[in-house]
């Protein structure tokens, strides 16, 4: 695809169970900023079913145009038909850049699309800039969050990237904002529909997937020595009104479920307060929590890396410190 001909910034807008996903709204906000910097238009590409209200909603968050592909078979996300829709529309309209959310589905889709059209895709970006040459500077954490890599896709179009969830702010919705809704037809055949979704089970509440939303997290590590000792973490969490989380080593040891794991192979969290108990602070762990508002660490090793990024801490034996802490906090709360 000739570079000169490509124009416009696109965002993949995912409608999930009748609503726009938060990450899609965040992406519209960041896409708007990039399109303005590039002095071009921002369009959304939205495959799905019964999208009328959602297409207008996406416009009200900042799209100039939304390409809507409505088909009952697109009601739920599936890799193959969604990739076909996105690839078909990219080939037809030749955008300069396409952004996806770095959700599971966004990465699943972007990974397939980038191979189908042989263009660059930067994963899990936390920042975007525009270079003096007009290329998208796609910035992502590298090496366990110790560095930020700037990724450029100069010779291929579209330049594609996924944006990390909950990094970009949700834009304000301007009710009545005007934009263009373009209805597109994409032929979806039997082969595209060879995969079926048989079942969806929503995980609710505290049980799973929610440590990202907690404002206080009390996280336990390998220093707890065994599963039974995790009760100290639960007690402290109750005392300070937080949810529990864990390091990879605690999860790998089978003490707590994987869905509360913080770190590079777990979840990225940004609570107002993060208590790190018996966590030494491996790079991979820090990558998942270093953006917490305040970090409070308890560890017996004064040289533990966790103290380098802690706002507060106690060097000491957690089996003495944590019970004392619980007692003291309970007393001060009563008074």
């Amino acid at each position, binding site marked *: 695809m000739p570079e000169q001909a490509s124009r416009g910034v696109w965002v993949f807008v995912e409608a999930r169970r009748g609503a726009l996903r938060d990450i899609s709204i965040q992406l519209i906000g960041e896409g708007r900023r990039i399109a303005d910097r590039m002095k071009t238009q921002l369009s959304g590409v939205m495959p799905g079913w019964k999208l009328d209200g959602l297409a207008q909603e996406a416009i009200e968050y900042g799209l100039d145009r939304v390409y809507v592909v409505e088909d009952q078979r697109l009601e739920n996300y599936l890799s193959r038909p969604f990739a076909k829709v996105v690839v078909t529309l990219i080939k037809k309209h030749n955008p300069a850049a396409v952004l996806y959310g770095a959700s599971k589905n966004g990465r699943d889709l972007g990974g397939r699309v980038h191979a189908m059209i042989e263009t660059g895709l930067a994963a899990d970006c936390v920042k975007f800039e525009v270079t003096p040459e007009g290329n998208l500077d796609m910035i992502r954490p590298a090496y366990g969050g110790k560095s930020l890599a700037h990724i450029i896709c100069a010779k291929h179009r579209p330049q594609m990237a996924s944006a990390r969830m909950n990094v970009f702010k949700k834009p304000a919705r301007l009710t009545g904002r005007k934009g263009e809704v373009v209805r597109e037809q994409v032929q979806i055949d039997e082969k595209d529909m060879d995969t079926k979704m048989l079942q969806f089970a929503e995980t609710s509440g505290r049980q799973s997937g929610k440590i990202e939303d907690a404002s206080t997290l009390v996280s336990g590590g390998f220093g707890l020595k065994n599963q039974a000792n995790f009760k100290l973490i639960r007690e402290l969490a109750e005392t300070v009104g937080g949810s529990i989380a864990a390091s990879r080593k605690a999860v790998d040891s089978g003490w707590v479920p994987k869905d509360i794991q913080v770190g590079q192979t777990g979840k990225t969290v940004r609570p107002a*307060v993060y208590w790190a108990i018996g966590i030494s602070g491996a790079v991979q762990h820090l990558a998942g929590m270093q953006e917490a508002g305040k970090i409070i660490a308890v560890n017996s090793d004064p040289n533990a890396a966790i103290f380098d990024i802690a706002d507060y801490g106690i060097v000491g034996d957690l089996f003495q410190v944590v019970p004392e802490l619980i007692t003291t906090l309970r007393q001060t709360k009563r008074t």
Partner: protein
Amino acid sequence: MTQPLAPKPARKLRIVVCIKQVPKAQELQVDPVTQTLKRVGVPSEINPPDVNALEVALQLKEKHGGEITVLTMGPSVFTQSLDRALAMGCDRAVLLSDRLLGGSDTVPTGMALSEAIHKIGETDIILCGEETTDSSTGHVGPGIAGHLDIPQITYCVDVQMADGRVRGKRAVEDGFEVWECPMPCLVTVNFGSNKPREPTLSGKIKVKRGGLTKTLSAADVGLPPEKLGLKGSPTVVSKVDTVMLPPRGGKIFKGETKHAVAELVKALKTDKIPGV
């Protein structure tokens, strides 16, 4: 350019597991001069999610019979990881190794692995880890599925085979989805979704006897040089910044427990930390 992988009639199950050798998680270090990941002289291991993918393959083989080929792309030192996978129970190994492949981003990597899979022959299930711990993109698995034009099920915590179809339980942000697709297909497996077995003594002896690993060059799998390596990669890393974390308060207390806790709680209250 890659040809679609066509469906094949029923016969012995054939699985390919794609793995990568990565620096050990706790050893990740950035070279202060080149600002790239130190790889030389750093202890390495099989990318942890790939070990879970290997375990899925071995369990499928135990249930349904068949043959497992483990595939990697990289320098010859990656045979360490292939040997470990063989000792865990894989039947044969393929090392795709060529200087021309150095510096490949996810586009040539996915293409080269796809071509190597064609070379391996008829394949029913391709398994990958959800992502690697050194570059964390998760793009190569779906990329292979795209190149080969086959269905994909990503981020699986459980993979089963029934009635000639593959069923994967995907862990998504708001819950679990069960997807089912025909073969050939590509499935990516989540880190920590099973307890991978250790290599066995008989497995190690099997590896020691040798002859299980085949090395392929770029030319062997029919890849043109301009599609490979840095030249064939659409993306470049233009620069790397060292992250400057915002300075933290660093009020660290030590000494006698009662006293240290009292000091900490006092500081937390003074600074109005929520929950205290």
